[in-house]
């Protein structure tokens, strides 16, 4: 247990340091992407869709930023975790290691970025739009759901990659599907009702929706949505871990 924790710590530290070249400013640099994207979406779709958000361009921008942050986190962390077991093959062939630490550390590094970069911004947006600072306390709950869900998927795809090296092509389709069904830049209300029901199958849906409720809705957020976000996370994480653990004995012959 102690060993796994130490290992997760040093690997997460390595991922953060190599990604940001030792500068904490790097975390904020990575926020530039979703902020610029939000500006672009707002410029192009804002006037068309603001009627769904009390005619406010600003609220539309908030909605887009939340959606982008969630989908980007999921996509980036899982895509980076995908080859994590295979690229460390030299190491796992030499030392006995809990291999699950490799995908876990990749997601954990993005989790740190989420906590110190995105979370404070969401907190500011919450206060600006609802004037209820206590709501900030709710923000971490769907984010934990998101991290667990991403970790579960990371375990699954890093396992799949050991067996099949053409998985990245297929996974691109999956991440595109996650992106387009997450209603990031369009209001879900414009989708025909029977198709909209399909959008609710997206496991990211409760996370995005509950974050939007916390940050911009005047009425209190639905506890059921927050619970669903956490539930999805716990289920995905345990399922992914079980699969990883069940197949890891076969890894050594293939990497």
């Amino acid at each position, binding site marked *: 247990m*102690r*060993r796994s924790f*130490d*290992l997760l*710590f*040093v*690997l997460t*530290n*390595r991922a953060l*340091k*190599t990604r940001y*070249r*030792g500068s904490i400013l790097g975390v904020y640099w990575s926020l530039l992407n979703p902020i610029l994207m939000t500006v672009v979406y707002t410029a192009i779709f804002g006037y068309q869709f603001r009627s769904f958000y009390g005619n406010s361009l600003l609220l539309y921008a908030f909605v887009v930023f939340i959606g982008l942050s969630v989908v980007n986190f999921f996509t980036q962390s899982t895509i980076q975790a995908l080859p994590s077991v295979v690229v460390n093959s*030299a*190491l*796992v*062939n*030499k*030392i*006995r*290691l809990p291999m699950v630490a490799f995908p876990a550390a990749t997601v954990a590094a993005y989790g740190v970025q989420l906590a110190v970069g995105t979370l404070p911004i969401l907190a500011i947006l919450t206060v600006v739009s609802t004037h209820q600072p206590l709501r900030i306390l709710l923000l971490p709950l769907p984010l934990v759901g998101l991290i667990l869900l991403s970790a579960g998927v990371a375990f699954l795809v890093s396992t799949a990659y050991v*067996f*099949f*090296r*053409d*998985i990245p092509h*297929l996974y691109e389709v999956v991440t595109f599907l996650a992106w387009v069904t997450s209603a990031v830049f369009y209001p879900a209300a414009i989708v025909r009702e029977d198709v909209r029901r399909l959008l609710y199958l997206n496991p990211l849906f409760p996370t995005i929706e509950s974050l939007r409720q916390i940050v911009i809705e005047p009425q209190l957020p639905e506890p059921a949505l927050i619970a669903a976000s956490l539930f999805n996370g716990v289920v995905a994480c345990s399922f992914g871990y079980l699969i990883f653990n069940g197949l890891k*004995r*076969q890894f*050594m*012959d*293939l990497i």
Partner: protein
Amino acid sequence: MNAVRLERVTLWRRTQEEYTFDLKRRIFALVQRRYRKAGRRRVLDDVSLRVQRGEKLGIVGPNGSGKSTLLKIICGILEPTSGSVETHGAIAPLIELGAGFDPDLPVVDNIVLYGVLLGRSRDEMEAKIPQILSFAELEEYGSSPVRVLSSGMAARLGFAIATDTSPDILILDEVWAIGDESFRNKSRRRIENLWHDRVTVLVVSHELQFVRESCTNAIWLDGGRIRAAGPAEAVVAEYLFSIENSAVELLERAKATLG
């Protein structure tokens, strides 16, 4: 007391050459009913082994006879297909130097990273940074990335980290001497210090002279089976005898065909 005990260990491994690492091709093969399971090969065959605490065991045999695989089984990197493995005490694999380094991270971070990979705790490694830097003679490089070190310097650093604590069971896949002449003396002294009475050593080596002089016992692996086991001197002699015999045989056969 046994430090290592292997009971009838057999290991089958999938042969990678035949495995399709391709989902597309695998599905096509299944659809066209051409799919066949990748082959398996027996790498270790019914190996039983007992190593007493403090014993120095040399493992000899030709390439591909399963020597390194046996060490991997003992380290717990591979699990046997059947049979049981038991070890008592902390195992330190002295791995290929630098396999755990990240070239972009500073030297001090790499010390902690490498140490934790080898199974030590983070606090312990943090505390040992100065003494490791000083042994590797790299005090001025603490905050530089490993990338700027020469390969000799990186090898020194890896050696300094790997040999910093004394384990109960030491696993050596080939013995190495690193660095320039002065560091080589230093590293040899350190290996000798690790090689004390209480520590159990398992070493794979092609240097038969070394095995004969430094090991108490030896085993001779051939095609995944133990051909001979016993006092190092006797096993090495038997192994050498067989090599010479097959060389003579080869020579005679060559002579015969040449007429």
